[in-house]
């Protein structure tokens, strides 16, 4: 965040190059890879919104289920109220925020280990409600029928238009998330993480800020869920298991969660890596598991920390030492 405000030519060039790449990339890809690109774009929003929740130092295991809340909200409002994607997405986000706000009261009474387990339990309970309440949520086979519309002759079911739509939505959300993190709220969240007692002693209501982070994070997770489901066309409870949650954790941790762009690097690199080992279908999870372990043991600050490590090895100036994984 020290880069904020030091906008120079190098950053401008980097930004322009990035823009050219993300805009042109779908045209060089096969159909299957275009699909993947859409999910990757959505997952970028997933990891960034998750990072906001973790800023206070609490790791939740309910984020994947929050995607599901958004996905079901989008599907139900589309199927029953006939709303199109422009309205279902904000509605999904609001539903996610509402569910998160209600869950704040039980969940945020806990911290650390208890919060982790409590959020896991709450998420699993919500997911099982989707399984059990067949008349509304369709049980294990889920709901179908939600799809992107045709507007001005553009079919949004086509990967390329939908990719641009996702790109626009995700970019907007990322800008908001970035602004939040660098605002007073974001700084307070950092303060609660690293110096909880001090923050409270100067009058910060830690509970309120933790709740705020949880609600905002869930809002964007639910939007991501809506985006995903409008492309997939159907929603099932099995899309939001602890398995998917674990993938979110892996992306964030392997990428490195101390910087805003760390999780984005994580999800992009691992998605490309994942695609390159597609032929080893059965052993793929083990490769992932092994990478997770190796990165925790040997690169605890994530891929994001590699450049600064290089710099410190070759003595090009001192790099500020990052805080440890957790401050306990």
């Amino acid at each position, binding site marked *: 965040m020290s880069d904020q405000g030091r906008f120079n030519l190098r950053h401008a060039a980097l930004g322009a190059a990035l823009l050219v790449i993300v805009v042109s990339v779908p045209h060089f890809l096969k159909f299957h890879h275009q699909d993947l690109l859409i999910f990757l774009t959505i997952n970028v929003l997933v990891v960034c919104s998750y990072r906001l929740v973790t800023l206070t130092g609490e*790791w939740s295991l309910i984020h994947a289920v929050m995607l599901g809340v958004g996905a079901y909200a989008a599907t139900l409002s589309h199927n029953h109220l006939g709303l199109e994607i422009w309205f279902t997405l904000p509605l999904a986000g609001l539903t996610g925020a509402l569910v998160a706000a209600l869950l704040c009261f*039980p*969940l945020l*009474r*806990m911290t*650390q*280990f*208890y919060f*982790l*387990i*409590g959020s*896991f*339990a*709450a998420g*699993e*309970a919500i997911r*099982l*409600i989707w*399984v*059990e309440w067949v008349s509304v949520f369709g049980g294990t086979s889920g709901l179908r029928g939600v799809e992107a519309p045709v507007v001005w002759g553009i079919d949004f079911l086509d990967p390329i238009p939908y990719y641009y739509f996702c790109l626009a939505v995700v970019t907007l959300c990322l800008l908001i998330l970035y602004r939040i993190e660098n605002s007073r709220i974001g700084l307070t969240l950092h303060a609660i993480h690293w110096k909880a007692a001090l923050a409270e002693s100067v009058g910060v209501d830690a509970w309120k800020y933790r709740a705020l982070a949880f609600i905002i994070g869930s809002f964007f997770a639910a939007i991501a869920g809506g985006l995903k489901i409008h492309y997939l066309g159907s929603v099932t409870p099995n899309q939001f298991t*602890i398995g998917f949650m*674990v993938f979110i*954790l892996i992306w964030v*941790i392997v990428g490195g969660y101390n910087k805003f762009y760390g999780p984005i690097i994580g999800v992009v690199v691992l998605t490309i890596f994942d695609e390159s080992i597609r032929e080893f279908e*059965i*052993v793929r*999870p*083990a490769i*992932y*598991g*092994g*990478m*997770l*372990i190796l990165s*925790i*043991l040997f690169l*605890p600050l994530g891929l994001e920390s590699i450049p600064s490590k290089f710099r410190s090895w070759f003595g090009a100036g001192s790099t500020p030492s990052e805080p*440890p*994984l*957790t401050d*306990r």
Partner: protein
Amino acid sequence: MDLVLQSIVNGLIQGGFYSLFAIGLVLIFGVMRVVNFAHGELVMVGAFTIWVVHAQFGIGYIPAIAVAIVLVTVIGLLMERVLFRPTRADPLAGLICSIGVLFILQVIATLVGGDGPSKQVPPPYHGTLVLFEMIRIPYQRVFSLVVSAAALGGLWFFLTRSKFGWALRAVAMDREVAALQGINTNKISIVAISVGAALAGLAGGLVAPLGNINPHMGHNVIVTAFIVTIVGGVGSLSGAILAAILYAMFHTFVTVYFGATIATIAGLTLMVVVLIVKPTGIMGVKVSE
């Protein structure tokens, strides 16, 4: 009335089985402060070992259980040495590493057993014990109850009567103070994970002939273990056993009358309620940070 009594007995048997793996989780968390997310997979490996050794190679059931216990204990020891010890400063890192192990063990099980349908192990004990002409318990379940009760009794004896047991409980109470008293905490960690993993392997061995064996069976195990651990009180062994039996009864009854999914939802809700109302659980003591 028959159904009620039958459900109580079934719940008791189920509770003994739950205790075996929940205790392991509590021991590992108590001594090493790490949530072993792969604990369900240890049970799964135990069950798979029975399938390979007993059902495929035709070696006896009891020796197969012994093999399962040894194998799972070795896995546990490897996890302690390679993963949990280097990451001890950070409980989150240990948890994440155990998730990595979870994936690896699932893949190994898939490679060993193939990607097909769930495996079955024919029960080595046949026949049914009939009590008072209304409660029917298959001998396989009687065996399961007796063995888990014996294992828990043995564990209790070990923890309260042996020097290692005393040292282990001391480390669980306060690692630093225990170390100051000259207790080798690394050695105690090894003991804790050996006992925890051995019990998980035993649980896998006991469940193998009673249910379906597949690489993903660990999920339900870990969900149950979390509920039991939280309700019983994190770090409380007697609490975990009591909670395991109570939760098993509760789950059995709700399943009989409302179905299994509702029972799990109710269990998870119960756990969240306990976390809010009494985070230390029914028998819990305050865990030192």
